[in-house]
């Protein structure tokens, strides 16, 4: 695809070349993070604003740190304490930020598609930091980058995603990214947590396979990606009980043995320990969960840098 990339809204419009390009810039950013003076002037004079309508610790901190290491001015807006609480609309807020001279807006919102609204109605560069159930492209890119650093390539890897796929923006963006990079994706969850039209002919991702049985889903996996289970799911009737989910879908050492010996384990955090993931696994030998956090900063530095410099797709 030709032209300049102005926003990062979803991974559905990223090519494999573009994703690989992000990896190589992220490598450079990891080097910067390893320095005694963790700062470069690449975004000096640029204003980066974070506007998080949903609570988040790690994504917000990760973006703040990334922007600061690149010397950007960072504006952190808390909708709870700003005029949003007085009923200011998202578009009004975005226009105000534009008038204040913000260059890049990092937006987290509970409504799917909210970043598109900001992108379509202002001249800001928008980075989607998670919207509803729709997409979380920076999380997926950091997941892909983490896998790529460990496996050298994503082509042909068997990646099993376990958990609440239906309500997970992390899962959606990862499926786009993983399939673009040639990985073989298996989704494992009860059918109530699976979105419509996945993994069948005529569906969104016909090549993705669905395995509601954890044992066959884990067999031979190179990568296991677990998702955070929202406890409300039981109340919504998607699950009979958290206990049953834990019995059927929890990733633990015993079950990980079904995967390849060098399997790596990812989780976007924060982990519900002993629900979707046994606590022993979280910091176990296969876990890359801590590294995901580090790589998150590197990837977000790379994305901020590429966007601020007029990124050619």
């Amino acid at each position: 695809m030709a032209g300049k990339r102005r926003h990062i809204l979803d991974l559905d419009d990223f090519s494999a070349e573009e994703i690989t390009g992000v990896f190589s810039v992220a490598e450079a950013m990891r080097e910067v993070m390893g320095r005694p003076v963790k700062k470069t002037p690449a975004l000096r004079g640029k204003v980066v604003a974070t506007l998080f309508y949903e609570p988040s610790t790690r994504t917000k901190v990760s973006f703040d740190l990334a922007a600061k290491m690149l010397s950007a001015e960072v504006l952190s807006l808390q909708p709870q304490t700003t005029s949003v609480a007085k009923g200011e609309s998202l578009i009004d807020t975005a226009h105000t930020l534009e008038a204040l001279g913000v260059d890049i807006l990092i937006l987290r919102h509970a409504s799917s598609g909210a970043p598109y609204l900001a992108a379509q109605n202002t001249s800001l560069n928008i980075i989607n930091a998670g919207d509803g159930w729709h997409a979380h492209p920076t999380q997926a890119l950091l997941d892909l980058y983490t896998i790529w650093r460990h496996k050298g390539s994503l082509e042909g890897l068997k990646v099993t995603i376990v958990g609440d796929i239906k309500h997970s923006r992390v899962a959606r963006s990862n499926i786009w990214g993983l399939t673009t990079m040639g990985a073989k994706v298996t989704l494992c969850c009860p059918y109530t947590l699976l979105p419509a039209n996945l993994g069948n002919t005529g569906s969104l991702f016909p090549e993705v396979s669905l395995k509601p049985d954890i044992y066959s889903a884990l067999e031979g996996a190179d990568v296991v990606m677990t998702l955070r289970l929202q406890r409300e799911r039981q109340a919504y009737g998607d699950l009979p009980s958290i206990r049953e989910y834990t019995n059927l879908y929890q990733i633990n050492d015993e079950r990980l043995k079904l995967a390849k010996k060098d399997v790596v384990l990812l989780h976007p955090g924060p982990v519900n320990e002993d629900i979707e993931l046994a606590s022993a696994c979280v910091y176990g030998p296969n876990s890359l969960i801590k590294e995901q956090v580090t790589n998150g900063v590197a990837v977000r530095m790379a994305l901020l840098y590429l966007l601020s410099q007029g990124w050619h797709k």
Partner: protein
Amino acid sequence: MTPKVIAGAEDIRRIIARISHEILERNHSSKDLAFIGMRTRGVPLAQRLASSIKQFEGLDVPLGILDFSLYRDDLAHQGPGPLVRATNIPFNIDNEIIILVDDVIFTGRSARAAIDALIDLGRPASIQLAVLVDRGHRELPIRPDYVGKNIPSSKHEDIVVHLSEVDGIDEILITSSQETMKEG
């Protein structure tokens, strides 16, 4: 204008030998010296200088790679392509005499960015700049310490350096700037 070769492999070999002598002469020995190549073609040039010095002095000189993209002041004007790659300097630059190596010095903005990048990494005893070609048109008060060849050029021309490690051939060309992509 068809590209014109103004120096070949043999010329470049001689330049490397001469510059390594000048470096040794000015710094009295190879002790505390370290070479850092500026991406892309400063990297093989730094390697060549280091191995040339090893031949004369029998001593290994530390060698690093610097990507100064994050320090540039002209990024928005750059074309597409891989925009930044990793810096790899596997030694502590504090109190070292750093010989920064690049292929061509033009406006001086790359050298400025590279110096800023180095200073973020530590506090060298001194930084000296070695280039294969000085083509003039400086926009900043920066002067190389070691110059392979002075080639006065017009702004409509480009100086292109090819090195066998990157391009498969050693040569210096002069060409009209429309015909080639701007080099670092």
